[in-house]
């Protein structure tokens, strides 16, 4: 993904959080159907959860902790094997946990089997029952709960309308596209009016275009119904687009959980900083409050490492780039670099450069030090071309030193 997308997604996520409490009329009708005594849209607490798969010595969840407020949408984000799906499945009751407690709406559900936890799950794919029509699939959960035929038909049609598939109600799932199938799965999960909606990589089996469309729709519906939702994905763009908060997972625990913007601008660990968005690893020094990169001072984030030889993680848009000729006025401090590639991204331009002089010409094991800079297209120095000599320096924006 491009950085422009990331920023747009961050902005969109920040925009939508304000309307999180809006409730749809369809849900009000549905909740009247189920004679559940529990409070709807319960919060979640997972406390010190350990999970070890049988036959494995590695902890899939290692002292895992998670707090979710009622009505919130939290995305668990991480690479494969980080434990994000395990966390979700443990919450659903599909996996045993070895220690710890799980509370939903204040109730300890650790000893409660899956089918009594009143959570509904949407799987990656293939979870619809092939011998039932879309409508029958959506009705299934209500039928299992003993809801009368007419009532469940009414609720199911309502949910299909919510996902925009009311006209496909009579189709078998095999006759539907992947995107439609996942919509039906979403409608089916919402039909039982779950305390918590669990989405396990619901979009990763879909085409890129459908994925973007559906993720926006999932967010709209979630805001509409106000259901507490956990969404697991490995796709950061997806996470940034839909989440109230994102928990970045690594090694069976959450490294940092924060609003998308915070996560991007103020990463707590190197893993988080490099996992989300693009980042440059630049040599510099840090005293824990302030750092120096390429001769320029900049604030460093809390948790930063101290020392005269640290790596500072600087986002491409937090670097300045000036043609070396302009620097003759003496105001520019920074390192000389040579332009390698220029990517025009519409309103933005990304410039890949290699440090071409000074002590950083050769870095680490004698590798070239590559630096990516991103700036608005209208700030691009005139006459910049591949091979141009430029001067690069950081802006005074807080960065993480590691």
């Amino acid at each position, binding site marked *: 993904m491009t950085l422009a997308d990331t920023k747009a997604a961050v902005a969109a996520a920040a925009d939508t959080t304000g309307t999180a409490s809006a409730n749809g009329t369809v849900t009000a009708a549905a909740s009247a159907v189920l004679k559940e005594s529990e409070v709807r849209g319960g919060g979640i607490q997972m406390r010190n959860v350990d999970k070890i798969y049988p036959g494995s010595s590695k902890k899939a969840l290692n002292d895992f902790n998670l707090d979710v407020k009622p009505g919130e949408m939290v995305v668990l984000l991480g690479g494969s094997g980080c434990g994000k799906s395990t966390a979700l499945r443990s919450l659903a009751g*599909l996996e045993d946990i070895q220690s710890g407690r799980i509370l939903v709406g204040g109730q300890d559900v650790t*000893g*409660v089997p899956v089918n009594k936890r009143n959570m509904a799950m949407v799987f990656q794919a293939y979870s619809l029952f092939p011998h039932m029509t879309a409508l029958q699939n959506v009705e299934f959960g209500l039928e299992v709960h003993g809801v009368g035929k007419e009532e469940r038909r009414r609720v199911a049609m309502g949910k299909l309308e919510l996902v925009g598939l009311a006209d496909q109600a009579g189709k078998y799932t095999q006759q539907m596209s992947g995107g439609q199938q996942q919509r039906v799965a979403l409608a089916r999960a919402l039909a039982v009016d779950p305390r918590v909606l669990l989405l396990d990589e619901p979009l990763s089996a879909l085409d890129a275009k459908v994925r973007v469309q559906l993720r926006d729709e999932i967010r709209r519906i979630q805001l509409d119904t106000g259901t507490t939702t956990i969404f697991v994905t490995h796709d950061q763009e997806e996470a940034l687009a839909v989440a109230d908060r994102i928990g970045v997972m690594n090694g069976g625990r959450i490294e940092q959980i924060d609003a998308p913007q915070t996560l991007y601008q103020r990463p707590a660990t190197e893993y988080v900083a490099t996992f989300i968005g693009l980042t440059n690893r630049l040599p510099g020094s840090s005293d824990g409050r302030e750092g120096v990169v390429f001769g320029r001072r900049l604030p460093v984030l809390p948790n930063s490492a101290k020392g005269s030889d640290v790596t500072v993680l600087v986002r491409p848009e937090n670097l300045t780039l000036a043609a070396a000729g302009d620097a003759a006025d003496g105001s520019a401090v920074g390192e000389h670099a040579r332009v390698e590639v220029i990517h025009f991204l519409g309103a933005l331009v990304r410039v890949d450069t290699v440090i071409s002089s000074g002590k950083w010409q050769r870095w680490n094991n004698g590798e070239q030090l590559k630096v990516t800079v991103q700036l608005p297209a209208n700030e691009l120095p005139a006459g910049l071309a591949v091979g141009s000599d430029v001067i690069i320096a950081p802006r005074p924006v807080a960065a993480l030193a590691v």
Partner: protein
Amino acid sequence: MAVNIDEQGLTNEQGEQLTPLQAGLDRPPQLRAARVRQQSIIKTVVLVATLLFLFIPLASMLLFTVRHPLSGRWSLAAWQAIFTGNGESLGADLTVLWQGLGTSLALCVVTVVIMLLLMVPTMVIVHIRSKRLERAIEWVATLPLTIPAIVLVVGLGPIYRWLSADVLSTNPIWLCFAYVILVMPFSFRALAVGLNSIDVKTLCEASRSLGASWPRVFFRVIIPNLWQAILSASFISIAVVLGEYTVASLLGRMNLQVALFQLGQSNSQISTAMSLLALLFGVILLVALDLISDRIRNRKDK
């Protein structure tokens, strides 16, 4: 307080849900693990019972061959008779058996050859050129599954009477014509799996566009890509031919199974031992078949 851990989760005697704390547990209950254990008990019971039923007769056969049924004496005489080819120590004449075995082996070869000549070119051509003809051939080739061998024999009787009297001879080798029909459904499936696992059409078009003639395409391109399917079709055919009794016995020809049956009347130990050997051979053939079809599957997955 009694605590139950089962399908209902953690409950007390009244069926009320408990938390691990209320139940006095220091660890979360392993509900899923309990189910896995329960499933594996069911699994073990079902499999052991099924396998026992399947293995007891085989074990009995083995015991039967080494223990004389009347005197209760243990001896390897039956096996010795087979491997030395001399059944005199048991008072059995094995010439019928060798004759039947020879016929059956020859029948295997001839049947496989005719089957391949008949099926492979036809199936390849219609696979490339005509979906309609391919469906017609599939229908015809799997038809023998619907027409039992015993029925076929009734109709084959007059045909074979005419064949042996006027055209060929009463030599049992001519049973091959009927056997090709019997093995057809099985070999068709094996070949169809192979054909569907490679893109024959593209292969042909590619080699034709390079200027190769049809025979060249067929022998140099298609056959080498199809040899695993051809092998598995041959193996299943051999297995069927070696086990064939119905047609041979009712048409009055001698093959391995007919010989086994006749020998069984006089010396059941030797015929049982020979049956075990034939079965073992069948197992080896079909395990090889499994390995081959596994390779075809793997290629298709790639």
